[in-house]
């Protein structure tokens, strides 16, 4: 099922944006329904543990506040990912300033994922999530965008601010690290 079908509105993003700017509030709902789940997955995959909802909301508020500057050079979703990533980095920096934050331990990440899902994890699930949680932050975000969201290397490069070649290397390093973790 496509995201458009899931949101129940098949109109393209640009059409929905124009409708919202003309005062159609349902267009905003359609856009949020269409893109929020992917944003939430991305935010959670990047290690945000408690405030996924808040980051996603802030992302939409920022985006809708400057939609008139949005250029259709990239897709709306890619643009939203870029905003969400910046917000995440801001939060991480702020938290680091507040207290000398240490890296999230694997066990914490797995526990948080369980809480987010509301699903009791079996051993395989825990192992897979732990493998992803063990990646470096850059590998984790590239892997999430590539495997969970299906973005191209070009789109990933736009989101994380790197080159296509670097995105490809991060992805393959991530896959290699996951395999190593699971083989141990």
């Amino acid at each position, binding site marked *: 099922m496509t995201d458009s079908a899931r949101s129940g509105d098949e109109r393209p993003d640009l059409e929905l944006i124009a409708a*919202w*700017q*003309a*005062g159609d*509030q349902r267009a*905003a*709902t359609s856009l*949020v*329904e269409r893109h*929020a*789940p992917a944003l*939430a*997955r991305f*935010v*959670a*995959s990047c290690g945000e543990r408690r405030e*996924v*909802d808040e980051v*996603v*909301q802030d992302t*939409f*508020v920022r985006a*809708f*506040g400057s939609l*008139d500057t949005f250029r259709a050079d990239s897709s709306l979703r890619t643009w939203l990912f870029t905003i969400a990533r910046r917000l995440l980095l801001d939060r991480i920096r702020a938290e680091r300033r507040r207290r000398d934050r240490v890296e999230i331990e694997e066990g914490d990440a797995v526990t*948080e*994922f369980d809480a*987010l*899902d*509301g699903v009791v*994890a079996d051993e*395989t*699930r825990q192992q*897979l*999530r732990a*493998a*992803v949680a063990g990646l470096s932050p850059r590998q984790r975000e590239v892997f*999430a965008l*590539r*495997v*969970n*969201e*299906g973005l*191209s290397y070009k789109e990933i490069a736009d989101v994380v601010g790197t080159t296509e070649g670097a995105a*490809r290397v991060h992805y*393959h390093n991530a*896959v*290699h690290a*996951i*395999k190593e973790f*699971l*083989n141990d």
Partner: protein
Amino acid sequence: MTDCPNAELRDLLPDLLHDRLDGATRTRVEAHLRGCEECRGELALLRSLRAVAPTPRLDVAGIVAALPAPRAPRRWTANSWRIAAAIVVLAAGGSSLVAHFAGSRPTDSVRVATLSPAHDSAVDSGRGASGDVELNVGYGYSELTDAQLLALLKDVQQINAMPSTETDATVPNVTLSNGGA
């Protein structure tokens, strides 16, 4: 789990997962998968990892409620209105000039007698009857400065103030080139 040496095909596995491949590429990847145990294993791993990715629940209504209101269309400044008004005036002045000059220009073999020889030469040279007006009214108003627009407006007012040279009710004295009248 080992890696397939075909890096190009391995690169396409996430696209296969998300159904982002065109028909020909998809067929090629699927053919490779039939003979490559490593890629089949990697694809299965990617599928599993995607399946266990966290999917937090969201309050869509809450997000929508927090969105800012759409910005009102950009308001026109006083300067914008002045430019628009100048364009209208210039367009009107330009149209009347074109109509005026086109109407008094001789055509083909018919020569239209004019009221004043000076007027004919002014038309041919692109100058008005007063001899000091030269306007380029074709395009580019938005690039003009306020001072230039004011100068153009002044020129247009002079043109509009000029007496009409049209003969209106009077029948022009027409002379055919073969000498007939």
